[in-house]
């Protein structure tokens, strides 16, 4: 019963039986002595990788090793925004593949991930910013991605309650991606976990990888808190812990770990339809289906593994919110939290081989890796299976910093806290 197909009929049947027959969504797997592929990290990216490996590259014996529980990392801490409004050629096709995978995800996984293409609207506040957004929109459209440049009147129609005539930061218009939106974050983790499990993947929780075992230059397995597990290939997808895990294999990464905070208010009636971002400070907001306003802003800006931030950023984010939409000032905050981001030196991710043969790396997702989850898993699975990068991820090389091919969307240079 536990691995039943979810459908309108199963919902009806269970509602007649008092929902007693659902059972767990995936097995409680025990580690086997060895696997063809071991994925380290049971976040969105690790689970998606395992799913696409099993679906497109099998038959393979695959395990996902997670030190905590599924959904406990950034995949369950983010603000759920998905979009493909990038500027640079190294990024656009990758994020657009991700968007297309989101569009078919619920059917593919047989899981309601609440994919909601409610639109992402980035506001501009000056002529210079409008020009930059026009350029970005054009770059997107040249790659076949939807983008619309709106003037002030069009934005007023969509979100009439913004502070348009703010003396310092008047709102002149916005760049809209209608296909962007939000996806229920933990449902993504659970959906991939369940779908991977149904294809035979072992999902092993409370299993921390403590070291790699090598023979010569090759990885042959991992040491874990649940014993040694052999592996022909190992893929690491541990987000904020990337430097720590890579250090076990003797690697130093172009990554710093930083804390990003997010906030949610009490539930209120439907108020904001889509995602709105403030272009003069750093503030973005959407409303969850439960009614809470979900919002955030900048990184705290210093190295951290603490999963909690400091008050200056709380103040800065709330000031941004008040400048953009003063009416949220009466809403009470419910909670806020932090997650540890793997901030790369150019703000773009890495999906590549490592210098250690048999060890593959998926890292550097910064604060934008949730939207990338499907394509990241898809391309990482391709890399692990074929030892060749997927066409849309070939720019995400580990050695791009040394060869001068950094992918710096924001033009900030090697300062992870500024990307």
């Amino acid at each position, binding site marked *: 019963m536990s691995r039943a197909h979810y459908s309108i009929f199963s919902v009806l049947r269970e509602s007649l039986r008092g929902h007693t027959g659902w059972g767990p969504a995936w097995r409680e797997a025990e580690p086997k002595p060895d696997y063809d592929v071991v994925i380290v990290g049971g976040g969105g990216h690790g689970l998606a990788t395992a799913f696409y490996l099993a679906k497109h590259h099998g038959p393979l014996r695959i395990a996902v090793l997670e030190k905590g529980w599924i959904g406990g990392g950034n995949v369950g801490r983010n603000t759920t925004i998905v979009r493909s409004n990038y500027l640079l050629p190294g990024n656009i096709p990758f994020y657009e593949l991700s968007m297309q995978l989101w569009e078919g995800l619920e059917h593919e996984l047989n899981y309601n991930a609440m994919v909601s293409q409610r639109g992402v609207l980035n506001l501009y506040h000056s002529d210079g910013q409008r020009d930059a957004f026009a350029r970005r929109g054009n770059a997107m459209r040249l790659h076949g991605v939807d983008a619309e440049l709106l003037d002030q009147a069009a934005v007023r129609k969509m979100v009439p309650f913004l502070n348009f005539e703010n003396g310092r930061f008047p709102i002149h218009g916005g760049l809209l991606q209608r296909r962007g939106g939000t996806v229920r974050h933990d449902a993504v983790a659970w959906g991939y976990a369940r779908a991977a499990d149904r294809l035979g993947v072992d999902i092993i929780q409370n299993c921390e990888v403590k070291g790699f075992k090598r023979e010569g230059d090759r990885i042959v397995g991992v040491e874990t808190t649940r014993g040694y597990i052999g592996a022909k290939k190992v893929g690491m997808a541990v987000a904020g812990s990337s*430097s720590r895990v890579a250090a076990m294999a003797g690697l130093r990464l172009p990554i*710093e770990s930083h804390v990003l905070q997010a906030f949610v208010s009490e539930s209120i009636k439907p108020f904001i339809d889509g995602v709105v971002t403030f272009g003069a400070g750093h503030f973005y907001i959407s409303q969850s289906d439960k009614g809470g306003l979900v919002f955030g802003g900048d990184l705290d800006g*210093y190295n951290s593994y603490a999963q909690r931030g*400091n*008050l200056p950023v709380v103040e800065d984010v709330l000031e941004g919110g008040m400048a953009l939409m003063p009416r949220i000032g009466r809403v009470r905050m419910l909670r806020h939290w932090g997650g540890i981001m793997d901030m790369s030196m150019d703000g773009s991710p890495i999906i590549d081989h490592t210098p250690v043969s048999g060890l593959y790396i998926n890292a550097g997702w910064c604060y934008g890796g949730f939207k990338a989850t499907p394509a990241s898993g898809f391309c990482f699975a391709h890399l692990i299976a074929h030892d060749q990068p997927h066409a849309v991820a070939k720019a995400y090389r580990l050695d791009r910093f040394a060869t001068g091919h950094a992918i710096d969307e924001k033009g900030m240079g090697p300062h992870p806290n500024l990307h």
Partner: protein
Amino acid sequence: MRIACPYCGERSLDEFLYSGDATVKRPDFASPTAANEFVSYTYERSNPPGMHRELWYHSAGCHAWLVVTRGIATHAITSVEVARDVALNEKPATKDSI
């Protein structure tokens, strides 16, 4: 988190700018392996989970560069030094460097 600037006393975080790992050292450009060393200096970081020595700039205060030693998992600061003193201690003073 508050930083005790040796000149200004304990101040709020929003008076400071962060500039990352203070232990990376600019390589000698004349070294035969300079290209690789500069890649490592510019891009690669140890990003340790324990104690971290890092540069902060007191931008809304006295404009001093500081070397702060801080626990990355706890945010607890154990020492704040003036970066100039740290640099002078590391490089023994010679006549022409003064």
